């Protein structure tokens, strides 16, 4: 009886030692349990009338944040993969140096600048944020897709052609699967940058987890700032770890022997 309890407890501790699960629990705790922390913030910031951001629930803000990042990253992913595939085909080869120049120069643009420039073109709100995030996120993804496809060994390409795979078959079954781990690293970079940029996007009127931070900074409410920062920080760390886990699944063939 006590033996099974112990085993269960040990498994529980084992799960907590997994950083992905731990960060997920922290994130969930912050998102759902923030109201419970109100007394803590009240004690930490005795000078504040309203020690808890209550204009909107953290769940709603988190959902809005994730939707914004998810939608923009999905757009970046589709366009980035298409662009990466295009410039590594025969027909698109001539465009590759230009795309590489754009990608390299574009990434020196600060995300804030891209966000700020989107506003005069698209107005305030979620639309400029979505477009700016999608465009900025496109750069590391395109770069990584090209690098991933380039990393496929020449012998493997030659063999795939020689055994009679069609161009489509080679792309879908050989080049893209082999490029996936490298490409995923680009997606990871892109998504992490976008989580941060989305938070800043609340300055241009998008509803995200940056809102409590911006409201707190302009209203000298440090508790709001802390709450927003904690949740968005936890979200970023959890997402990063999730990508790391996914990456390890994708290149399983590099390690597993069975």
């Amino acid at each position: 009886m006590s033996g099974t309890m112990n085993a269960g407890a040990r498994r529980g501790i084992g799960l907590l030692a997994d950083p992905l699960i731990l960060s997920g629990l922290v994130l969930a705790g912050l998102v759902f349990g923030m109201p419970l922390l109100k007394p803590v913030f009240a004690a930490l910031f005795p000078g504040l009338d309203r020690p808890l951001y209550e204009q909107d629930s953290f769940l709603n803000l988190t959902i809005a944040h994730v939707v914004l990042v998810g939608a923009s990253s999905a757009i970046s992913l589709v366009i980035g993969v298409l662009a990466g595939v295009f410039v590594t085909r025969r027909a698109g080869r001539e465009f590759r140096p230009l795309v590489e120049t754009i990608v390299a120069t574009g990434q020196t643009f600060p995300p804030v600048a891209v966000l700020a420039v989107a506003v005069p073109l698209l107005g305030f709100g979620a639309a400029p944020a979505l477009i700016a995030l999608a465009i900025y996120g496109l750069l590391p993804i395109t770069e990584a897709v090209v690098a991933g496809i380039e990393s496929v060994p020449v012998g493997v390409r030659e063999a795939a052609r020689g055994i009679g795979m069609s161009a489509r078959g080679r792309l879908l079954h050989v080049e893209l699967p082999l490029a996936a781990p490298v490409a995923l690293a680009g997606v990871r970079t892109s998504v992490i940058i976008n989580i941060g940029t989305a938070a800043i996007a609340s300055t241009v009127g998008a509803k995200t987890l940056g809102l409590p931070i911006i409201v707190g900074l302009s209203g000298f409410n440090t508790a709001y700032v802390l709450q927003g920062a904690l949740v968005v920080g936890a979200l970023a760390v959890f997402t990063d770890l999730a990508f790391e886990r996914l990456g390890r699944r994708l290149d399983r063939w590099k390690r597993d022997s069975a």
Partner: protein
Amino acid sequence: MSAALSAGGEAAAAPDAAPFNPVLLLLVVAGIAGAASLYPLTRAPNRLLAGQPVPWSAVIEGGRALVMLPALILVGGIAFPRRRGIQFLVAAAAALLAAALLWLAGDAALRLADPAAPAARISFGGAFWVLEAVFALAAADALQRSGMSPAARLALGALLAVPLLLVLFSGAADSLSILKEYANRRDVFANALTRHIEIVGGTLVPTLLIGIPLGIAAFRRPALRGPLFSVLNVIQTIPSIALFGLLIAPLSGLVALLPALGSIGLSGIGVTPAIIALTLYALLPIARSTAAGLEQVPAAAIDAATGMGMTRGQVFRRVEAPLAFPVLVAGLRVTLVQTIGMTAVAALIGAGGLGALIFQGLAASAIDLVLLGVVPLVALAIAADVLLKLAVSMLGRNRA
């Protein structure tokens, strides 16, 4: 052996090499489409209202269109995808066109200015931005096709910005709204730019002082590597705005406990937390490139140096450090570009800098003010990028 031969043969064959330059063709088509469907300038009654389009006819009246004649070279260049001399001509034409377009816009703004309405603003329209982008990309494509080394390309690329800068500093564009905004806020702008550079510099010093020793330690003690880089990686993952926010409470708490710290400039908001957060971010690329640089030093070089009787310190100073340096500079480039961008965000916690102009502009819907922050910010980031890329390729060349 024969595989290499046939591979070379295939490359030489390249039967699919287009007889024209598809990139330039696409750019020219995009430029014409953008110019035809969008307006070159907009005109607004004041700096906060949306503008009405100004048509091309008003911009190019009286034969001014002639300054855009180099466009013919761009069109002609399409037919010569591989001729080196032509590429230089195309690049030069693109640079002249970029400057000519700015001159046209500035000249039109001057002519259209109404002395009765001093608050009226004439700003760039969509066609202006599209065409300037087309010119920049056409120049980049031409430089790439010229077959020059990357360093030479960067240097020549920087040189190609000269005509545009000449127009800008000649005063010919001063009637445009962004430059009016600048004229009105000359002091604010100068302060913001200085502050921005100060913060970046103030970040770089502690970053190098801490990051390089951390990188060396990580290289020497592999056991330290994993934990150190994990921690730094988590910090990098946290969005900048969140890290700034997370530092406010503990720093203000610290100052409340020890007022002496406050008297030396520490506080929850302002420049200090900005530099602390930016340094935390910058540690990862610097430490990692230091370790990576030391790691790629060939074991044989260290072996040979030790074998000829150098001490451990001599090996480090004379062999390892110089060989690792280019990699460190490459890491410094990443750090610098990243820090320049993130410093803009630090404006949100009251650190000032170009970000302050951007966020003030966004809050007031004053697009010119936003651009007054964004354009120098981007220019600064690109300049840092180009300079350090040049440095890296020079260092690489000395090596070879």
